[in-house]
C-alpha cells in the first residue's frame, strides 16, 4: 500500500512563505484562501527565546475528523492516504470546518473576488479560473497536490523524487525543509527521516493520526 506523507524540518525552515505562496500559485487560490500557511510566534521568556515557525497544511489524517463529519461523503480518504474533497458532492454544510482540529478548511464563497480590489481579474487569475476550476459554495483545503501525483504516476514518475510528481510546496522550498513520500515504504526518504530524526505529529492527543510530521 501507499501512504503519502510529509515531514517538515523546522530547523531548516526559514519562514520565507514560499510554500504558502507557491501553493496559491499552483492552485490559483483566490484572496484569503490558504491551503498552506506559515504560523510564526515565539516561546520562552527573554532572553531565552525561541522563534517558532510552523508551516501548516492539511495533515491528511489517517483517522480524519473531517471524513467522519462529512454527511455527504464529499470528503474521503483515498487508498493512498490523501484526504480529498469532491466538489460535486460537497453541499457546503461546513461541518468539516468545525470538525477539523487543525483549522485547515476554508468555505469558498466569492468566485469573483480579485487580488487587486476593484481592478478586475488579472490575466493570471482569469486563466487560472479555467485551468484549475474551484467551486464556490464548497469547502476546500490542501490536496497534497493530488493532481501532480496522479499525473506523475501515470507518466511513470515517483512522487517525492521526481519534481513533476511532487507537491508544489515541497519543490518550492529553498531550504528543502519539506520531504514528501510514501510512509509505508521503509526505504523512502520520508520514512528514513521520520525514523532517524523522530518526527512528531501536531496534536497527537486528538487521535487523528496526521500524515504530516515535524522534526527539528
Amino acid at each position, binding site marked *: 500500500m501507499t501512504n503519502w506523507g510529509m515531514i517538515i524540518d523546522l530547523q*531548516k525552515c526559514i519562514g520565507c512563505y514560499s510554500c504558502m505562496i507557491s501553493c496559491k500559485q499552483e492552485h490559483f487560490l483566490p484572496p484569503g484562501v490558504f491551503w498552506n500557511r506559515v504560523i510564526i510566534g515565539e516561546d520562552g521568556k527573554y532572553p531565552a527565546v525561541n522563534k517558532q515557525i510552523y508551516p501548516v497544511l492539511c495533515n491528511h489524517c489517517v483517522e480524519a475528523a473531517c471524513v467522519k463529519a462529512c454527511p455527504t461523503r464529499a470528503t474521503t480518504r483515498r487508498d493512498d492516504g490523501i484526504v480529498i474533497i469532491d466538489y460535486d458532492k460537497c453541499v457546503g454544510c461546513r461541518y468539516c470546518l468545525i470538525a477539523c482540529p487543525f483549522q485547515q478548511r476554508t468555505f469558498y464563497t466569492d468566485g469573483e473576488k480579485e487580488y487587486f480590489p476593484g481592478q478586475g481579474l488579472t490575466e493570471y487569475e482569469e486563466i487560472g479560473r479555467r485551468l484549475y476550476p474551484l467551486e464556490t459554495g464548497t469547502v476546500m483545503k490542501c490536496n497534497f497536490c493530488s493532481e501532480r501525483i496522479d499525473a506523475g504516476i501515470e507518466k511513470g514518475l515517483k512522487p517525492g523524487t521526481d519534481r513533476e510528481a511532487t507537491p508544489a510546496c515541497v519543490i518550492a522550498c529553498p531550504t528543502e525543509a519539506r520531504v514528501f513520500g510514501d510512509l509505508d515504504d521503509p526505504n523512502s526518504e520520508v520514512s528514513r527521516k521520520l525514523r532517524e530524526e523522530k518526527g512528531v505529529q501536531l496534536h497527537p492527543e486528538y487521535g487523528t493520526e496526521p500524515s504530516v510530521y515535524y522534526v527539528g
Partner: protein
Amino acid sequence: MKASRPEIYEDRWVKTMCGRCYAMCGIRVHVVNGVAVKIEGEPDSMHGSGGGICGKGVAGLQVLYDPNRLNVPLKRTNPEKGLYADPKWQEISWEEAYNEIVPRMKKVLEENPNEFFFQWSTSRGDQYRAFGEMQFIQAVCGRIPDIMGAGGGGLHCGKAAHSAAGVVHSSWSIVPDFRYCNYAIYFGSSKGVGSGHSAMFSAKLAAEARHRGMKVVSFDPMCNFSGGKATEWVPVTPGTDGLIALSMCNVLVNELGKYDVDYLKNKTNAPYLVGLDMKYVREKGPARGLKISQSEYVRGGARPGLYIGDDDTNKPLVWDTIDNRAKVYDDPGIKEYALDGDYEVRGIKCHPVFQLVKEHLKDYTPEKAAELSGIPGENIRRIATEFVNAASIGSTITIDGHILPFRPASAIIFRGGQGHENGFHACFAVCLLNQLVGSADVPGGTLGWPARSLGYPSTGELSWSPYKGTDGFLETNHFGPMAGVMASHGPWPTNMPENNHGLNPNCITSVGHIGTNINFQSDRHEIWEKMGTKDKLKMMIAWGSNSLLSTANHEHAANALKEMEFIVVYDIFNNELTEGFADIVLPAVCYLEDCDGSGFAGQNFNHAYGMDGWFCHIVQPVVEVKGERKKWQTVLYELACCLGKKEQFLQTINNTLSLRSNNAFKPDDDFSAEQLVDRVAKQLFGDEHGWEWFSENGFIHWPKKVEEAYWRHFVDARVPIYLEYLVEIGEKIKSINEETGLGFDLSQYTPLISWKPTSVQRIDDPRYDLYCFSYRDIIHTGSSTMEQPWIDEASRMNPYTYNITMNRDTAQKKGLTEGDIIEVETDRGRKTQGRLKLMEGQHPKVVGIAANSGHWAKGQPIARGKGSNFDVLLELDQEHLDPICTTIETSVRVSVRKT
C-alpha cells in the same frame, strides 16, 4: 457554474532569472496560452537554491500582471511638487516624452554634466544593467558626473561592509563557508536566513549546515530572522557590534593567546614595522604619497596604480628574528618574522603591527563591552573561546588533491552591524576576528566571493583574480571584461583626499564606497558652499529607483528633489517619487519582460560560492511586452540617438564590454537588447553560445576549481589588520578641513581598528530611553515588494512585519499593551506611528520596525498605508554618517507613547 477548460494552444517553460532581489536566482516560468502561470526555481542551477525559490520570487507573477503597471509615458501637469502632491498625469507618447526630455538634457550636458544626476536601483543585482546605465552616462556625458549612484545607497546598502570585504576578501560581502563551517557568528546579518547576497543559495546551504550541527551565534536586537534561526541569540543594542568583536579579539590574543601565527605572518601586515608616526618603516624612508588623484580615478575609470608607497622600490620592512635585522616584507631570505618586540631601524624606534594591535586590544575587555552592550562579559569570553576552538588552528583538509588550511569557524557582519557611524571599523573588527584565526577564504571559514575566476574554459573570458599589489597588499582586477566600467569594489587601493570643488564630498572622504548621500543630505548646501562648488544639481533621471522612499528620511529628500528643475523616472509603477516630484514617467518592462545578460558579468551579488560551480544565466522575456513599455536598453539607446551620441554609445559598449571583431558594434549597426546579449554571449562563451542558445538553455555551467573557491591559499597577497593608510588620509582631510572650514570628523581615522560610540549612543536625555532600528524582513526587498497581494497576505499573517515591536516587559513598564497605536518620536522631534506588537525576543531597550513600509503612493494601492515608515525618523547629515565610508546611522533614540 464551472468555467470551461481552455483549449491549450501554447504550453512552454522559459528559463530566466528572478528579479525580486539582488540575488537573482535562476528560475523557470511556465507559460500557458501566452500567460505566465507559474514560477519555479531552476533545479539544474546553483545560482539559487537548486530548485527552490522564496516567497518573493513566486509572487513575481503579481508584478507582471499588476493592473497598476505603467503602460504609457506620463507627463506631470500640476507644477506643484512635494510629498503627497497630485501630479495630475497626462498620458503622452514616447515621442512627446523624448521631446520633453532631450532638449533639457542637451542643455545640462552641454553646460555642465556634473549637474546631471542619474540614479539606478539595487533591488535587482544585475551589475550588467548598472554597466549599461553607466555606459550610457559615460557616452552622453563624456565622463562620469560627480554624483551618481544607487537608490538606497548608504541606507540599504553595505558601504562599510563592502569596504572591509573588498580590502580583506576581494569581495562585495562575506559569508560563512556553510558546506564546512561548524561555528558561525553573525553581527546583524541575514546570510543564510533568507536575505543578503546569494540569498537562496545561502539559505539552502545554511539549512543543511544547521541540520548537520553548525552552531550559530547571532548578535541581533531581535530574535526574528537571524536571531530566530540561531543556536544562540544574543540580544544587543544597535551599534555595539564592533565593540563586541574587538573584545573577542582581545580574549583571543591577550587572554587565551590563541591565534593563527602562520596566517598572520604570511597573509597579513602583522609583521610590518611601524614607527611612532604610526606609519610603516620603509626601505628608503617615508613614502611620498599617491600619484593618481581621485578625479582621474573616478572620471576616467583609470586605476590608481599605486597608493601610499610611491613605488615598488620603497617597501615596508619587517624584522627577521634569526638574522636579527630588518628586511623588506617579501625578502625571499626571511627566516622568521617578528610579531612583537621593540626594534630600531635607521634610528627609528619601531614595533611590528601585531604588537601594536595586541596592546591596543587590551582596552577592549569583555567587561567594558558588557557595560555598553549589555551582554555579560563571561558570555563574550565563552563565545570567543568556542569560536577559536572551533577554528581548529593548524588543521588541514584535502580537496581535489590540494591540502588546504581548514578553519570551520566564521564571523560575518552585514547591514545591521554596519549601518552605524562606527560601521567601517566594526566591519574591520569582525574581519580581524577572522584574520586572527586564519579563517579567510579557506574551507569552513569566511568567504569573499566570487573573488577569483580563472575564466570560462574554452575562451578564457570572465577571468579575474586578487593579486599581490603595492606593499604586498591584496588588489583585484575583478570585473574581468567589465573592468574599468565600475570602480572596483575595494576601495583599494584607496586615493588621497582632495577637494575637487565638485558636488561630491567623497573626493575628500575618499574611502567612501561608490555612491553618495550628499544630494539628499540636510546639510548639503553648507558642505557645497565650503567645498566651493559652483555646480548645482538640475536634472535627475531615476532608473527604476524610488529615490524618495529609499532615502533616509524622505522629508530631507523631498526638499532636495524640489530644488531640481526636471526629474525623469523610468519605472514599472508610480510611486512616492513619481507622484511627488517626477516631470516625466517612462513605462518600464519588469524582469519577466526584460532581456539582458546580467548573469554573465562578474557578479558579486549572487554566484554560488565554495566548490559549487559557475552558473551564468540570462534574463529573457517570458511573455510579450504589454502596452508601450520599453526595455531599458532601448530607452537608453534611443535617448543617446536623440542626443546625437549613438556612435559614442556603441563605442562605449564595445570598450567596456570588451566586444571585439565581429561582436563589436559598428557605428551604423542597429542596437537592441537581444543584440547586445547575443554579442556579449558570443564574446564570452564562443560563437556557438549566442542569444539563440541561451534563450533555449537559459544558462551555462562549468565546474569550479579549488584555486578559485579557496583562492587565499593560492594567492600570495596580504591584507591589513592595521589600516596604515588612514593615517595619511586623516592628515590630508585635516588640512582640507582647515582650508575650507569643513568639519569632517577625524576621530576614526586611526589605523588601529577601534570602536567609538555613535552620536545616538551618546544621547543622555532620559526621555529618549529606547533605541529604534529597522530590519530587513525576509518577504521584502527595498521598497518594491509591498505592492504584491500574495506578499501582503503573508505580511499580514506575520505577527511582526506591519507592526512596531517592543519587548513585553518594557511595554508593561510603560503601560502599553499589544495592539495600541503608538507614536515613536526621536530626540530631534521626528515621528512615526504604528500598531504595537509585543515580543519576548526583543532587546528591552530596542523598538523594531520592518524596513520600507509606510507607502502612500496612489500608484501602488496594495502597498499604500501598510506598516510604519521607519526611515522618516533618521537624520541625514554629515554628523550621522560614518565619516570614513559614509554609511548612514540607521538607529535612533526614541520615546514611545500611546496615541
